[in-house]
């Protein structure tokens, strides 16, 4: 994820709500690979930070429901739950959302 350069075409045009990223820090998520996601703050590029609202949430039992959500670790981005979350997945979703919001990325991210 390092090496991205996000740049708003025109800062005034940007009027989307910040992207809300919630990282589950329940023990199951933590054990099955979520430990690294908790450090997401240090890993997202500086330029993204104004557009991102990152927080850790306690277990919401996604890991226990046998639904199609996938398996731990879970991450919730703008209310949408993603299973088998990785840093790459977060990076992909966020850059897509930023693009839709009119923010172009430079530096070979896409």
């Amino acid at each position: 994820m390092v090496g991205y350069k996000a740049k708003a075409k025109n800062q005034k045009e940007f009027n989307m709500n910040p992207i809300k990223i919630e990282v589950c820090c329940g023990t199951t998520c933590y054990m099955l690979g979520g430990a690294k996601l908790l450090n997401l703050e240090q890993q997202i590029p500086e330029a993204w930070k104004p557009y991102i609202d990152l927080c850790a949430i306690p277990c919401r039992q996604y890991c226990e429901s046998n639904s199609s959500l996938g398996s731990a670790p879970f991450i919730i981005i703008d209310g949408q739950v993603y299973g088998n979350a990785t840093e790459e997945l977060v990076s992909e979703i966020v850059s897509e959302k930023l693009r839709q919001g009119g923010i172009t990325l430079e530096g070979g991210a896409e």
Partner: protein
Amino acid sequence: MINGAERMRREMLIRVVRDFMCEPLESCQVQAENCAQQEQLANLTHSADTLTSSSAGLLPQTIDRIPLDIRPKESAPSRCCIYHDRAVIKYGLHAMMGFDYHDETDELAPLSGYLQNVLQSDTLPDVPLTVCEAGCNGCPDSRIHVTSNCQGCFARPCTFSCPKQAITVINQRATVDYSKCIKCGKCIQVCPFNAIVKTTVPCEEACPVGAIHKNEKGVAEIDFTKCIFCGKCFSKCPFGAVMERSHLLKVLSAIKKGKNVVAMIAPSAQPQFPGGLEKLFSAVIKAGFSSVMEVALGAEMTTQHEAKEFVEKMSEGQKLMTTSCCPAYVQLVKKHLPSFQQYVSTTPSPMKYAGQIVKEKEPNAVTVFIGPCIAKRYEAISADNIDFVLTFEELGAILAGMKIDVMSQEPAQLERPAVATARNFMKSCGVTDAVLNELAAEVKNPDDKEGFKLKTEFIDGIDKKTVPKLKMFAGPKSNVNFLEVMACCGGCINGPCSLVK
């Protein structure tokens, strides 16, 4: 990031704990979503042997289903097919119950039968590792291999760099004469096309003492007369074929019976769980342990005794003393360099002191050491004050399986927090620092420590070169007199069974 083998193992452990600890009737109310399935199982429980079901929760009914649950019919297999995956998970459960791969005599015997045996017996596994033959890939022998990237160049640095003249160029392609090749890898470094590779057997490559080898059937086998239980094969095998023979069920069973189970948590726990030690301690109490203690308190005693022993030994004229808290290193000296034994400190490890503190206070306590280490399991067999050993992975599984969120716990009040130097035993150099600190406090003038000049050194991670290195430290040219040895690179925090590396 965790890898697939770790993930499968952890998923298995979480399921085991969840089913073991749940009460058949309560579980229906708690898990509304899974109600239909749970009810079915609860009915089964009542019709089945009620004695086992009450002491082992739903596990006797579900254990044979775990491989199927982890690899259901339509899922993508990791190996050739889901059936192979399931077989490996089955033997993983075997090892989790404490069995050796070769303990299985009848392949049709269900896991629930083994579960019953293990709950009724009092014996613990004699060695902490086993190799699952069904899981072992029988990786191709380690050798130097010239790939099709070879361009048959004019310079041919490979032929010139080879110390044994094992490479010749035939038909525009470098060819290795395996009767001469010593696998030194010099050709790999010089090839301008990166055309030469070395295939390796990961477990053999990782083992610092040559204790794991492929047998005549082509599957890996551990020679326990050589093994030092460092766990490097366990973490390096990409097929997850090296398995731990665990004490998990014994501990869970003791908790369920309401015994006075005391968790003794190694200093390296601190970076392993979110929220810090105090929250972790609350979570451990919630999981049913009657009390928690920091092994760092034992480390304080180790520091004091080791500093004292060091001063004594130096004044007796001994040239070198090494630490003794890493059990894999202790085994290394015992099995591979007995002449070095005289230099190893005789001070007991922090775990042993911690066990002693607990048992002195509460003689009936069941002491459980929880750490990142496989060799500790072996050390505990000969330690009187340690009943069981769990790993951080298993502790994580206990918390996850019992749905205990570490982050949302109230921080526990510690009776007396251990000093920082003792907590630092988890890192390489931590022991040295603690002992030096102690020495500085004891001896007023640091330049005159009863006639000897302090020179410290440390070995960070045991590898194939460690034994010759140790010999060098014992030799006449070395002026080092305090040596710290840690089997894992970086210290215990990078132990084979740690959650976060």
